[in-house]
């Protein structure tokens, strides 16, 4: 520490304000629009298998998003949120982690979950809140979660996952007994990544979470998806100053800004961030600059707040760009790739049909998981409710038939 105030001791006679733009944070890009490596760029260490897994995940999510957007319009699901325009940022960041690193997401990160192997059926069961949903049909569509895949269940209140991620990550660096050697080890095996939008970065939880991570030194990667909008609010009405990245610097956190439509750049940045976190046990902030190509959600109409022109100048497609890279490497077969699309669409439609026919959760699940076991008050309320439903079977068709 330099002094009790913990600031740099750089004496000056000049009464000068530091301009917020002084940092001038650059945006890292490795691929050009066609997916060719930018001149002089250093290619990250990425193997064919990982690259193809990233690509397939993005393609899958694009198809899923299109289909489910349509399914919502047909009234088959009540709500949906697309990842459109941010597939590269989400997938490639998840790909740069170990599959058992923790993911704490906001809600637009289905691609990260898919990368880990969440099945089409699992996506559908959640969206149709049927009895096979891991979350037992309690939350709105897209609030996924999977313990097996180390993906914390989504919570709607924005920003709450940010300080939680700091806490989770802190647990990952507490010295522990190594399973193999049986000895006390300080080695960090896993880290946590925390996704959030530039809008959510205004919440108090963001500031609390970053400050605690910086001071307590937690191995967490804060991944800010700056996509230009929070519902209708453009970024320039969300914050002044240089993006979210400048805040990371302010909190004393290592920070980098990447082109979020460039999956290779995101992969490289996240890989480096993970390595730093594992080695030092400290946080990193990555700000991804992409554009929310779609509406905020199916409840939203972006024509009310942004122009076609703006959308047209922001049509950078992360999938095409990465495809260009794969083709240039000779890792992808164009013909095969196009054939895949049709099968994907059919599979998704088929899965919709299956999931919407699966029964709703049984009435007993109203009172489970409120506590570890239902307290007597809840047992009593359930009994009363069951008697009521049984007496009026027509009024409660989804549950009445199954009451014993």
């Amino acid at each position, binding site marked *: 520490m330099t002094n009790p105030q913990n600031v740099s001791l750089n004496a000056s006679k000049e009464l000068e304000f530091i301009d917020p733009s002084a940092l001038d944070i650059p945006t890292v890009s490795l691929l050009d629009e066609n997916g060719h490596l930018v001149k002089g760029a250093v290619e990250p260490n990425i193997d064919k298998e990982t690259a193809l897994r990233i690509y397939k995940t993005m393609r899958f999510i694009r198809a899923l998003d299109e289909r489910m957007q349509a399914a919502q319009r047909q009234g088959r699901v*009540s*709500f949906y949120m697309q990842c459109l325009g941010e597939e590269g940022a989400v997938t490639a960041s998840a790909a740069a982690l170990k599959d058992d690193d923790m993911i704490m997401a906001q809600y637009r990160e289905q691609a990260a979950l898919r990368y880990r192997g969440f099945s089409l059926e699992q996506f559908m069961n959640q969206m149709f*809140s*049927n009895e096979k949903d891991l979350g*037992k*049909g*309690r*939350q*709105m569509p897209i*609030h996924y979660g999977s313990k097996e895949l180390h993906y914390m269940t989504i*919570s*709607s*209140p*924005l920003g709450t996952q940010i300080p939680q991620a700091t806490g989770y990550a802190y647990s990952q660096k507490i010295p522990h007994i190594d399973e193999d050697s049986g000895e006390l080890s300080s080695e960090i095996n896993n880290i946590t990544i925390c996704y959030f939008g530039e*809008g*959510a970065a*205004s*919440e*108090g*939880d963001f500031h609390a979470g970053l400050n605690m991570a910086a001071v307590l030194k937690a191995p967490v990667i804060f991944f800010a998806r700056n996509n230009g909008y*929070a*519902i*209708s*609010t453009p970024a320039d*009405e*969300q*914050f002044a100053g240089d993006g979210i990245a400048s805040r990371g610097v302010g909190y004393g956190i290592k920070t980098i800004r990447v082109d979020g439509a460039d999956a290779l750049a995101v992969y490289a940045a996240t890989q480096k961030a993970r390595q730093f976190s594992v080695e030092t046990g400290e946080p990193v902030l990555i700000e991804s600059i992409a554009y929310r190509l779609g509406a905020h959600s199916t*409840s*939203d109409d972006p024509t*009310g*707040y942004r122009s076609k022109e703006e959308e047209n100048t922001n049509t950078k497609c992360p999938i095409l760009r990465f495809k260009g890279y794969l083709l240039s490497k000779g890792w992808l077969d164009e013909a095969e790739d196009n054939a895949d699309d049709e099968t994907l669409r059919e599979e998704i439609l088929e899965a919709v049909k299956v999931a919407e026919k699966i029964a*709703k*959760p049984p*009435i007993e*699940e*109203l*009172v489970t998981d*409120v506590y570890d076991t239902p307290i007597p*008050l*809840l047992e009593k*309320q359930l009994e009363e*409710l069951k008697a*009521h*439903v049984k*007496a*009026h079977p027509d*009024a*409660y068709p*989804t*549950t009445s038939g199954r009451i014993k």
Partner: protein
Amino acid sequence: MAQMNMLQAINSALDISMSEHPLACIFGEDVGYFGGVFRATSGLQEKYGKHRVFNTPLTEQGILGFANGLAAAGAPAIAEIQFADYIFPAFDQIVNESAKFRYRSGNEFNVGKLTIRTPYGGGIAGGLYHSQSPEAYFAHTPGLKLVVPRNAYQAKGLLRACIKDDNPVIFFEPKRLYRASVGDVPEDDFIIPIGKAEVVSEGSDITLLAWGAQMEIIEKAAEMAKQDGISCEVIDLRSIQPWDVETVAKSVTKTGRLIISHEAPITCGFGAEIAATIQQECFLHLESPISRVCGLDTPYPLALEKEYIPDALKVLSAIKHSVHF
């Protein structure tokens, strides 16, 4: 008179309030040019300018802290919290600051000019975080007024009263009725006083009491009970704090029976407070125990929402139980 839905009625109340006071400001997430996610503030930015109707950054804590400061300076501050479920990040600013500004300073300062509007309640397939009715948390805090309208007409008159009231008020808007409740609403200004319940229909056998979106449910139950020859008196509480003990007690003294219904969980819901008070006021007139038809003591579910919600059938069962006690 004009036909308006609840959103238009609210918009009209806001419009009048903005023209009435040159310092009045409306703000919150997405409320600016877009007019809010429910469009309650549509057209107001065009009319009153960006410095009086504006988007805030996405921080409820910030919105209410800012609103407290603005109101302390004497400007009518009309803050929107996008969903009542997201009022909790602002809980400290509301219960520790808005509510206690006047008391702690010996009225050197107050935030009487603060009004918080927020959509609340379920029935819209919103699950845990788009369906809550958090009024009871705030009813426990001295210094706040709480108001809930049941239809478009009430929404305009009550919101006007909230904005004119010299205390911080939370105005809970039943989002399920935003577009569904359409009726005659005067285009001109009018005010419905805070703190007065309304006897919506008279009856002799039992009193049914609710507020906001739950009014529809108890009115329907009253209709159903009528077919069984039971005459219900239906009361809309309208204001939760202060609440109109006198009107409710008078009715229960007459009917001898009371059912209170709200969507929020039953335990420590505001129904509990009413039951305790009316039991004390009307003990010798009661023919059966006061009963409550409310949400379960669980978070608000999605798939089983229909089972969870206190619907007309459940209210009807309670009516019969009470009458045949």
